[in-house]
């Protein structure tokens, strides 16, 4: 083909009409970008999720057994065809306390290679008493790395049965691929839901069997998670594990039974031995006791005889003492006599001396007369006699003195002897006392020994009795031992795992609706533009035809033009859209999946090619059709201006009373609108689409914001919930209630049973909270049960339970239907649903205590206290919570504000999506309006130029066009409101996450904002159009048609 001229014309055409070319280019680019981008987000989410799980070497299959799993089990699973690797791990749910609050945590061992945790801070635990804690929990708790946490079992078992220690040092913060979002699963301890997880080294566990085995499936890693291919592959292998399950269960059962029996036998032997030992011990003890008694008694006898002897020596001593006293008296008497003798002697001596003096005086007188002489002689004689008598007396006295002295001597030595005797007596008395004390001690010891022996014997007997009982129990237990049950799960058993896949599905749902609208508009626009182009070039086509060019050569130009614009637009749009939109969306979801950092956004050629093909098809088809229409005509016909479109009467003219009242310009406007029907619909569709998208954007926000206010302002009127410990006594409960009542901020409290249960309809199972209020009357002050639409209030009664709306929908149940509660102990229980009530956060099943009793066969064990505060603010609720926590019997507190936070998190994720929506909507509106107006103006250039010639001011000319745009904008907005409402209804249900129901409302303000924004876009475009209108050159436009 050597049609150089044509080719040149083609390039010139593009250069000359850059605006048109670009407008097709951009609208196709935006359309394709949005279409392929949003649609690609779905697979990209799966790829990203898959990449994350692959990077963390995530398991595919988890096997749990009720009786633990052995190394043999591990080997057996590893040997299953299709299993690439298997690893055993340990885990246990325990309670951990932070301050007064006790939370349930899931402790799991670090696996050798699978389910690798992501270290967010610190280091991984290495020693037995080290752990790494859930980073999400660590961030919001008061704990930090380096702190110690203490765990307790939360049940009757000792924690040391499972873990080697109960105190762990936090060495790091981690995230785990087992917990990709906020949920941590449920448990049977504490308040029923796990708050955090903890990882510890394998050696921290004291268990001798694994609690679970993780396995990876051959080839599963190469597949993309969340796809049917992956699910099927894993299911295939699960089926194979199911095949070995029975055998393994039996082996484990036998093993346990054998082991137990052996142990039982041992124990029995031990008991028998112990019994014998006890008997021996008893005899021995009795003998020993008898000996001891004998000894003591002998000692007592000795002491008694000693005491008797002592008594007699005391008597002897007493009599000696009497004798001595007598002798002393004799000696004293002798002494007295002696003294009297001495006195008499002294008198004699004095007489003698007086006689001597008389003698001497007589003698001295010299008288020798006889008488004198005789007297002297007589006197002398008498003196002589006196002197000898004195001497004699003196001798007697001396003898008596000597006698007395020896007597005294004897007495003194007698006293000495007595003193010695006394000393001896007191010595022996002391000895006796000692001996007696010893004997008393001996008795005491004896009695103690006896009591001890008796106690020991009793204890021993008790122990033996206990042991016997235990043996019996153990025997019974062995007999009762149920066969272990293996539970084989795939990844969907992990909390939030399925949610991620569901989010991807949601993205697909959004991707099927939104981009479709967007794309449709884009296709329509490029279609209009191409049609217009062909129409404009009518004369050229005619000329070429007249010159003898074949139809295909002529059409080729337009097809080429459309092709080039569309293909380049698609390519740019797809290259951009498939990277940017998935990135934004996956990033937005990153708020929910905070630790999944892997973003994989490959080009999904399928969507891209689909979008490009559709865009190409629609523009090419439009071009072909309009070319065909033109080419069909004769060349001569084509050279003439097209027969102008007929003006026609509109329906409204028939309503003369309205029509007459209409201002002239309005008549023209209305006729114009009706005349250009294609443009009318295009514009309405474009503006409507824009309005609808924005309405959905705003509406999503409304619906999500609304739930917080409705949920906590109208439905759940309580601010906190005190979870009691399992063993809290009534007294403790009352204590808490009365204590809390003292707080002025507290305006009410009521007891209830709140526990997480699993309900289902036979096909699917979901976790809900069972809420049984103790006081049904009072309950309505805490939770309002009502119909969302009619606002009809429901009362709890004994005929059935009330289920919350979202769960009712999930399970597809209506009032009057029956659902099943799956209870671990009691099996499946049937519950009749009497009403379905409005609720947005979480799922609840409400029933009266009487109905509970009917269902469960026992009275409810109230485990929680709901309370509300006067001002309903967080601080008050938390203060009361803290008060309650300080009291015995309280396990933990949950605040409604915590739930609000969850909503905020979700909102964050959606916020960005909404912004994307609104910006896209704005761009769409702008491009559509600009393009259509542009076409409108070129199409009617003559008409507008005529108006100008007639002397219409620029403003008046603009108004002539604007009037139509205003009407179209308003009509479009109305259409958009309807479309938006429908779309919103669809989207809101689609984007809901499982545990939450969003509102179904759109606020009035959103309608207003959406409308105003649409108007604003419209105004902007009209503003831009004003200059275009002003530039219309009368002379050029009205030149006779060439």
């Amino acid at each position, binding site marked *: 083909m050597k049609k150089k001229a044509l080719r040149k014309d083609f390039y010139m055409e593009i250069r000359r009409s850059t605006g048109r070319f670009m407008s097709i280019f951009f609208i196709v680019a935006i359309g394709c970008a949005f279409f392929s981008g949003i649609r690609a987000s779905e697979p990209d989410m799966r790829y990203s999720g898959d990449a994350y799980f692959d990077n963390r070497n995530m398991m595919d299959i988890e096997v749990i057994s009720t009786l633990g799993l052995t190394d043999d089990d591990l080997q057996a699973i590893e040997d299953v065809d299709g299993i690439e690797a298997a690893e055993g791990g340990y885990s246990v749910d325990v309670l951990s306390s932070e301050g007064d609050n006790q939370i349930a945590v899931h402790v799991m061992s670090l696996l050798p290679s699978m389910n690798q945790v992501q270290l967010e801070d610190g280091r991984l635990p290495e020693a037995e008493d080290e752990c790494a804690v859930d980073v999400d929990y660590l961030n919001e708790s008061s704990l930090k790395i380096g702190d110690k946490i203490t765990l307790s079992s939360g049940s009757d078992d000792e924690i040391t049965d499972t873990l080697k220690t109960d105190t762990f040092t936090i060495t790091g913060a981690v995230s785990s691929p087992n917990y990709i979002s906020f949920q941590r699963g449920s448990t049977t301890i504490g308040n029923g839901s796990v708050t955090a997880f903890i990882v510890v080294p394998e050696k921290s566990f004291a268990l001798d069997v694994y609690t679970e085995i993780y396995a990876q499936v051959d080839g599963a890693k190469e597949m993309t998670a969340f796809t049917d291919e992956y699910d099927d592959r894993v299911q295939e292998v699960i089926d194979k594990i199911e095949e070995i399950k029975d055998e393994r269960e039996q082996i484990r059962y036998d093993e346990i039974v054998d082991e137990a029996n052996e142990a039982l036998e041992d124990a029995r032997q031990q008991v028998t031995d112990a019994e014998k030992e006890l008997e021996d011990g008893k005899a021995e003890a009795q003998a020993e006791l008898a000996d001891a008694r004998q000894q003591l008694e002998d000692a007592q006898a000795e002491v008694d005889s000693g005491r008797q002897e002592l008594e007699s020596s005391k008597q002897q001593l007493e009599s000696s003492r009497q004798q001595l006293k007598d002798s002393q008296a004799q000696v004293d008497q002798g002494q007295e006599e002696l003294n009297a003798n001495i006195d008499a002697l002294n008198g004699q001596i004095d007489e003698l001396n007086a006689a001597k003096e008389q003698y001497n005086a007589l003698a001295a007188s010299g008288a020798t007369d006889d008488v004198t002489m005789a007297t002297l002689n007589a006197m002398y004689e008498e003196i002589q006699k006196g002197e000898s008598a004195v001497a004699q007396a003196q001798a007697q006295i001396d003898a008596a003195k000597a006698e007395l002295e020896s007597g005294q001597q004897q007495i003194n030595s007698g006293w000495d002897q007595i003193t010695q005797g006394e000393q001896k007596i007191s010595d022996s008395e002391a000895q006796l006392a000692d001996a007696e004390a010893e004997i008393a001690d001996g008795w005491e010891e004896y009695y103690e020994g006896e009591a001890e022996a008796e106690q020991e014997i009793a204890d021993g007997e008790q122990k033996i009795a206990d042991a016997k009982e235990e043996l019996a129990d153990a025997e019974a237990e062995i007999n009762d031992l149920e066969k272990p049950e293996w539970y084989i799960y795939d990844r969907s058993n992990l909390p939030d795992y399925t949610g991620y896949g569901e989010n991807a599905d949601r993205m697909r749902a959004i991707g099927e609706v939104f981009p479709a609208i967007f794309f449709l508009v884009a296709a329509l626009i490029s279609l209009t533009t191409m049609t217009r182009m062909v129409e404009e070039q009518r004369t050229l086509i005619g000329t070429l035809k007249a010159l003898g060019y074949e139809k295909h050569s002529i059409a080729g130009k337009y097809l080429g033009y459309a092709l080039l614009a569309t293909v380049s637009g698609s390519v740019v749009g797809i290259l951009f859209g498939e990277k940017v939109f998935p990135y934004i969306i996956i990033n937005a979801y990153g708020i929910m999946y905070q630790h999944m950092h892997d973003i994989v956004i490959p080009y999904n050629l399928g969507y891209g090619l689909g979008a490009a093909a559709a865009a190409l098809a629609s523009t090419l088809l439009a071009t072909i059709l309009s070319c065909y229409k033109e080419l069909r005509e004769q060349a001569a016909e084509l050279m003439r201006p097209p027969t102008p479109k007929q003006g026609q009467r509109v329906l409204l003219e028939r309503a003369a009373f309205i029509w007459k009242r209409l201002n*002239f310009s309005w008549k023209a406007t209305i006729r114009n609108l009706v005349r250009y029907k294609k443009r009318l619909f295009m514009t309405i569709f474009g503006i409507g689409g824009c309005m609808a998208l924005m309405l959905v954007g705003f509406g999503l926000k409304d619906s999500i914001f609304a739930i917080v206010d409705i949920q906590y302002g109208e439905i759940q009127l309580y601010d906190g919930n005190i979870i009691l410990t399992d063993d809290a006594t009534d007294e403790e409960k009352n204590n808490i209630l009365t204590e809390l009542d003292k707080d002025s901020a507290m305006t009410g409290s009521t007891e209830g049973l709140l526990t997480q249960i699993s309900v289902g309809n036979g096909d699917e199972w979901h976790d809900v909270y069972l809420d049984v209020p103790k006081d049904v009357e009072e309950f309505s002050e805490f939770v309002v049960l009502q119909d969302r639409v009619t606002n009809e209030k429901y009362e709890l009664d004994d005929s059935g339970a009330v289920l919350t709306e979202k769960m009712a929908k999930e399970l597809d149940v209506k009032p009057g239907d029956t659902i099943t509660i799956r209870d671990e102990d009691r099996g499946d229980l049937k519950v009749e649903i009497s009403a379905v009530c409005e609720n947005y956060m979480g799922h609840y099943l409400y029933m009266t205590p009487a109905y509970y009793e009917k269902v469960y066969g026992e009275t409810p064990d109230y485990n929680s206290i709901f309370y509300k505060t006067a001002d309903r603010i967080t601080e008050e609720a938390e203060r009361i919570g803290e008060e309650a926590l300080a009291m015995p019997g309280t396990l933990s507190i949950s605040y409604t504000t915590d739930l609000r936070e969850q909503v905020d998190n979700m909102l964050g994720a959606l916020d960005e999506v909404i912004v994307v929506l609104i910006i896209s909507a704005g761009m769409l509106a702008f491009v559509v309006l600009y393009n259509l107006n542009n076409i409108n103006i070129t199409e009617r250039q003559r008409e507008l130029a005529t108006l100008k010639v007639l002397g219409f001011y620029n403003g008046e000319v603009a108004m002539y066009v604007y009037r139509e745009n205003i009407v179209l904008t308003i009509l479009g907005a109305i259409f958009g409101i309807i479309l938006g409402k429908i779309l919103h209804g669809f989207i809101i249900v689609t984007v809901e996450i499982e545990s939450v129901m969003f509102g179904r409302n759109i606020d009035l303000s959103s309608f207003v904002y959406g409308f105003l924004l649409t108007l604003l876009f419209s105004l902007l475009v009209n503003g831009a159009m004003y200059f275009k209108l002003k530039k219309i050159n009368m002379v050029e436009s009205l030149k006779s048609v060439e």
Partner: protein
Amino acid sequence: MKDFVKLQDITKIYKMGEVEIRAADNISFSIDKGEFVVIVGPSGAGKTTVLNILGGMDTATSGTLLVDGEEITAYNSRRLTEYRREDIGFVFQFYNLVPNLTALENVELALQICRDPLDAREVMEEVGLGDRLNNFPAQLSGGEQQRVSIARALAKNPKLLLCDEPTGALDYNTGKAILKLLQNMCRERGMTVIVITHNQAIAPMADRLIHIKNGQVSRMELNEHPMSIDDIEW
């Protein structure tokens, strides 16, 4: 009234890239009030340029245009619009009716913006379309459309009625009828009518005949005894 319209050295230069085209080159002439003026010249001579400048649709590069004593060339774009609105009636070769409005409404379209209009129906009767008031342009023949176009121009009661090849797209008889209508309007209403044509044959019906060639007035002649269109054959 002498010199009701006066052009003095009107020059219009179009710049097409590097090339300058002198569409009007020092054109000067005057027209009296109530005259029926025919401007003739070959294609591309600059007739339309002159008419456009006269009608305020285009501005002269230099020179002055006085209409009824007002210096139109000094007007800004808004005053020009006002001038078109109040003082000028235009009749085009291709009628330029608004296809979406009925014949009557097309006339009314012009009237609603001007200060002192005639009654639309009367004017329509006058142009002989009293029974086609509610037809859309597409339902009318070329001649009828041109009548509507004339009616639209007349109803504004303009000072000047400018007609650019009014018969160009019409057959002989219809063309004649249209010209007759224009002549009658001029005679009966005393309206100043300027008709552009390349058809020399109708020259005798003009009070004043202006020949334009290569953007310049080559000749101007006054016709003391204009012929009636009925007497002219071509």
